[in-house]
C-alpha cells in the first residue's frame, strides 16, 4: 500500500490581484523549539548547542539552512526545507541532549502564506491593530498577533518585500476568504 497522500491546507489557488497577492508556501518544514528560559543560562546553552545565536524578541535570524523566528519568551519557530524536518528534529534532539529543551514538529499544524504587493501592508491593517510601517516592523522582524481574529505569527522580509504569515492550518480557508473580501480594492 502506498503512503498516505499529503494535501496542502488550501488545496486551491491563492489570490492574485493587481496590488496584492496571497500564496500558500508548501516548501517549509516547521519545528517549535522551547526551553525553560527562567533557568539561568538555559537560552545560552541551547544557542550554543544549536550553533547559532537565537533571535531576540521580534527578530528573525537566518542560518545556513534554517531560519529562526522568535515566538515568545523561551520559544522559537525553526523553518527548514520541507521533508528535512524529521531529520532536523532528530539532529536537534541529539544536540540538546542533557538540556531541558523541547523540539516539536509543527509543519502540519500551520499554513504558511506569503503576502505580497504594494497593498499588503494596508490589507494587514484591515485585520490587525499592529503598526506595520517599515520604520516599526521592518526587515527580519516578526511578531505574534491576531489577524481577523485568528492567532498568527507574521514576519517581514524587506529583501522580497513580502510578509510570511503562519497560522493554524484549519483557519487557512477562513483567512483566504477574509483576504479576498478585504482586498477587493487592490
Amino acid at each position, binding site marked *: *500500500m*502506498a*503512503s*498516505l*497522500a*499529503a*494535501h*496542502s*491546507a488550501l*488545496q486551491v489557488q491563492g489570490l492574485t490581484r493587481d496590488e496584492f497577492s496571497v500564496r500558500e508556501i508548501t516548501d517549509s518544514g516547521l519545528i*517549535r523549539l*522551547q*526551553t*525553560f528560559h*527562567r*533557568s539561568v543560562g538555559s537560552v545560552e546553552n541551547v544557542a550554543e548547542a544549536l550553533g547559532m545565536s537565537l533571535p531576540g524578541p521580534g527578530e528573525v535570524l537566518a542560518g545556513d539552512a534554517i531560519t529562526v523566528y522568535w515566538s515568545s519568551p523561551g520559544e522559537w519557530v525553526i523553518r527548514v526545507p520541507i521533508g528535512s524536518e524529521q531529520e532536523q528534529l532528530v539532529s536537534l534532539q541529539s544536540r540538546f541532549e542533557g538540556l*531541558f529543551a*523541547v523540539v*516539536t*514538529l*509543527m*509543519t*502540519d*499544524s*500551520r499554513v504558511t502564506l506569503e503576502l505580497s504587493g504594494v497593498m499588503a501592508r*494596508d490589507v494587514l*491593517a*484591515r485585520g*490587525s*491593530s*499592529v*503598526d506595520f*510601517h517599515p*520604520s*516599526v516592523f521592518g526587515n527580519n522582524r516578526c511578531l505574534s498577533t491576531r489577524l*481577523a*481574529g*485568528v492567532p498568527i505569527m507574521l514576519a517581514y522580509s524587506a529583501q522580497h518585500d513580502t510578509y510570511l504569515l503562519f497560522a*493554524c*492550518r*484549519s*483557519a*487557512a*480557508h*477562513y483567512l483566504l*476568504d*477574509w483576504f479576498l*473580501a*478585504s482586498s*477587493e*480594492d487592490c
Partner: protein
Amino acid sequence: MKRTVKRHEHARINADDPIHFSFDGKRYRGYEGDTLASALLANGVAVVGRSFKIHRPRGVFAAGKEEVNAFVQLEEGPYTEPNARATLVPLYADLKATGQNAWPSVRFDGLAMLGLFKRVLPASFYYKTFKWPSWHTWEGLVRRIAGLGKAPSQPDPQTYQKQTVHTDILIVGAGRAGLMAALEIVREGHQRVLVLDEQEKFGGSLLASAEQADRAWLKRVLADLAGRDNVTLMSRTTVNGYYDHNVLAALERVGNHLGTQAEQSQPRERFWRIHAGQVILATGAHERPLVFPNNDRPGIMLASAIREYTHRYGLTLGDNVVFYANNDSAWDVALELVTAGIKVTAIVDVRSTVVAKLQRRATLAGIELKLGYAVVDTRGRSGIKKLLLRKLTADRDHLTGPKESLSCDLLAISGGWTPAIHLYSQSGGKLIFRDADTCFVPDVASQAVTVVGRANGEFSQPLNLQALWSTPDVSSEYQWIDFQYDVTVSDIQLAVRENFISVEHVKRYTTNGMSIDQGKTSNVNGLAILAQETERQIPEVGTTRFRPPYHPTTIGAYAGRELGPLYTPGFQLPAHVCHVALDAQFEDYGGWQRPEYYPRPGEDEHQAIAREVLAVRNSVGLLDYSPLGKLEVHGPDAREFLNRMYANNMVTLKVGGARYGLMLNEKGIVIDDGVLVCLAEDHFLMHTTSGGAGTIHQVLEEWLQCEWMQLEVLVTNVTTQWATLTLSGPNARQVLEKLDGDIDLAHDSFSHMQYREGTLCGVPARLLRASFTGEVSFEVSVPARHGQALWEELMTAGKNYGITPFGLESLMVMRTEKGYLHVGADTDGNTMPQDLGWAGVIAKKPADFVGRRSLSIEVGQDEQRLQLTGIELLDSSADILAGAHVLSANGDSSTGYVTSAYHSPTLGRTVALGIVAGAHARQDEEVTLFYNGNRQAARLVKPGGYDPEGERLNG
C-alpha cells in the same frame, strides 16, 4: 427662497459641468462641487424637511455638519439612506433624494396638523400620555408616525471596510489652524503626520473665503504638504470618537460622492481606527443660532452658512437680507455680502452699542442698523417674509417700546460661536467656560492632545458678544432651541418646573441636543436657559458629557467585513472536502465546521442519526475527531504538574497508559475532562474537550508562569498538527488492520485505554484506545496533511463492513446512551466533582490539586446540590428535550433540569441525563418533568443504560 440664476464667478464649483438630480420627484440642475443643499438652494427650494414632532416646515439652516433641518432620504431600494444631511451630500449625477417625516411631501405635509396640538405635546409628553389605557393601544399609531427617515428594507449591496493606522501626529481638521500646525510640524522633523478633514476638500472655512490671498495660501500649503512622504492627507474623513490611549475612530466616505454608480470593488465607507502619538484638534467652531419666536422658518439661516453659500457655491440667497446678531462676526458677513452685490437691508443687534468702525462701514454700505433690538416674531410659512422687533431695555431683561417690522426674504442669524470641543471632551479633557465669548473652551487635557484655532476659542477677531438667550416678555412656546427635535424654551422651563436640575437629566427629559444635533447648535443655548431658569451661572450648570460618535456613523462601517461567514473565524477539518463530498450537514462547534450527521437522500435528521448510531453499534463507523484538544506536556516536573492539575491521581499512570481525568478551577468547579496519556516519564499527551485546547493551554500556562514558576515544565499545543479520526464499532479493529502499519492491534497487546505510536500507511501515527461511543474505538492520529487521505483509506478499507461516517450528533446520542459526561452540556458553572459521583476518587487522592480546598467548603457538602443522574421516561414512547425541568414533589418549583436528551435507536426509547438536587440519594425515585407546558412522568436512574458493564468497548 431666491433662485440663483447665475453663480458668482469665484464659486468653487465646476460651472461647465451641470449635473442633474431629483428631489421629491422633481428634477433639478446643479454642478460638480455642489452639495445637495447648495443645489437645492440654488434652485430656490425653500422647504426641504419637516421637524420631528410637530412637522414644522424647515429649510436649509447651515452649510455643514451642524445642519439641523435639511435631512433627506437618499436614494432608493437597497441603496437608500435615511437622515442624510443635505449639507454633507456631495452632488453627483442622477442623485435621488426625497423629503422625510412627511406625508405626502415636505412641501405639503398632512401631519403638520400636529402643530395645532403643540401645547399638549410638550417635552416627554409620551411618558404621561401613553400610559392609559395601555401603551399597546397607542403603539401602532406611534410606530407609524414616529421617526424620521426609513431604514432600508433590503440588504445593502455596498461594502464597508475597517482599517488601522498608526501615526506620530494626527491633525483633525484641515482648516487654517490645522494646516498651519501641519506646516510647522513638517518643518521641524520627519514624523508621520496624518491630516484628516471631514469635508470634500481641504481648507475648512477658508473654502468660504472670497479673498484671493486666502485661496492662494491654501493652494500653496496643500501642495507643500502633499509633496511630503511623511504626510498623509485624507479628506471626506470625519473623526467620530476619541478614546483612551490616543485611539481615535474616523469614518472615511470612500464612495459616497459617487452615489449608486460607485465601483463595487471600492468600499462605500472605511472605518479607521487611529493610534496617534500626539493629537492636534483643529475642529473649528459652530455658529450658534439666536433663540426668538418662530426662529425656525425656512429662510432663517446661520450667518456663516450664508457666507459659505455665497462664496463657496456662488449663490445669491436673497434680495432683501436682514441680519440678527449679538456679536461682531455677523457684521463682517453682512459687509462681505454687500461687497458681493447682495442687498443687505438691515442689521438687528441685541447690543445697544457696537464698535464704531463696524457701524460706520455698515452705514456706508447702506445697511439700516437696529441696535438694542430683539426679534419678537417672524412671519412667512414657507419662507421668511417679515420680522417683528421691539427695543430691549438696557439690561436686556425686558422689551420696551412699540413693535416695529422689517420685511426680508432671508434672515441671517448669529448668536456667537461654540468651539467644537466634542472630541476633546471625549478624550477626557476638562473644559472651562469663557464668559466673554459665552462658550466652553479646553482647559486641562488628560491625553496627549492639543487644541488649536477656533476649537480652542481663538477667534480671529474679538466677538464682543453680549448674550440674549431668548426673547423676553413673549411666549416661550415657539422659541426653538433644538430645531430638529422641536425643543423650545418652554420645554426647558417645564423640565425645571418638574424639578429636573441636572443638565444631563434635562437633556434626556427634553431631548435637547440628542440624536441628530448632538449639541452642536443647541447645547449652549439650552444650558444657558437652564441656568437662567434655575438662577445659576452657566459654569454651575455645566455641560453634558460628549460621547462618541460625534457624527452619525453607518452601522455597516462598524461591522466592516465581519459579516456572514466572516463574522467570526471558522476552522475546517483536515478531511473537510471528504465531508462535503458526503453531503454532511455542518454545524459550528466552537468555531469548527463539523458534520452533525451525513443525511442520505430522503433521510431527515433523525433517520440519518439513527442509521449512523446503529451502524456503529452493529459494525463500524468513522468520525472526524480532529478538534480533540491535544497538548504535549514535557519536563522533569511534568508528572507532578499534571497531578496538581487533575482532580484524580496521575502519579500511577504508566508509560503507554491512558487515564480519564477531571480538571477543576480554583473554586473546585469542573472545567474540563479528557484522557491523559503517558508517552514517557517526562512527556505526556493531554487530551482536552474538542475545541478547548486553547483555553486549557492558557490555564496551564497561567499556573506555570504565575504560581509554579519553579516547576520545569513546557507545554506545547499540537491539536492541529494531528488529524484524528475515530474508528468505532465492533469491526473497528478489522478495518484498521487492513491498513499497512507496524502497530500490533491485537486485543491482548493493545487494550482499552492504551496508547501506541508507529507508522500507518507510511506516515507517523498515534493510536489511542479510548471510547466515547461505548464501542471498541481507535483514535487514529496522523500528521494533518495526511488526514484527508487517511479518511479515504479507512472508508475504502471498511467498505466490506459497511463503514459509515458519523457526525457529532450521532456521537452525542451514543455517549448519552452510555451515560458519559459532556462537560459544558451536563455541567453548569457550579458543578463540582462530587456532583458527578467522584467523591470517592477524590478522597483517595493523597496529593493536593487545583480546586481541592474549595471542595470542602460548606456549600460543596450540601446534599441538595445539583447532581448528575440518568433520567428515564416512564412512557418509553415519549420524548423530552434538554432544558426540561425536574419538578419538586409538590410540582411548584424546579429541582433541576435535563441536560442531554436524545432518542436512542439502540434502546428504542429516550435516553437522558440531567443535574437534579440530591439526585444521588434519589435513584429510582419517580419525578415529573416539565417542558413547554407539558408534563412527563420519569424516574431518576443511574446514568448509562447501554452496556453498563462496558464489555463492548473492551472488546
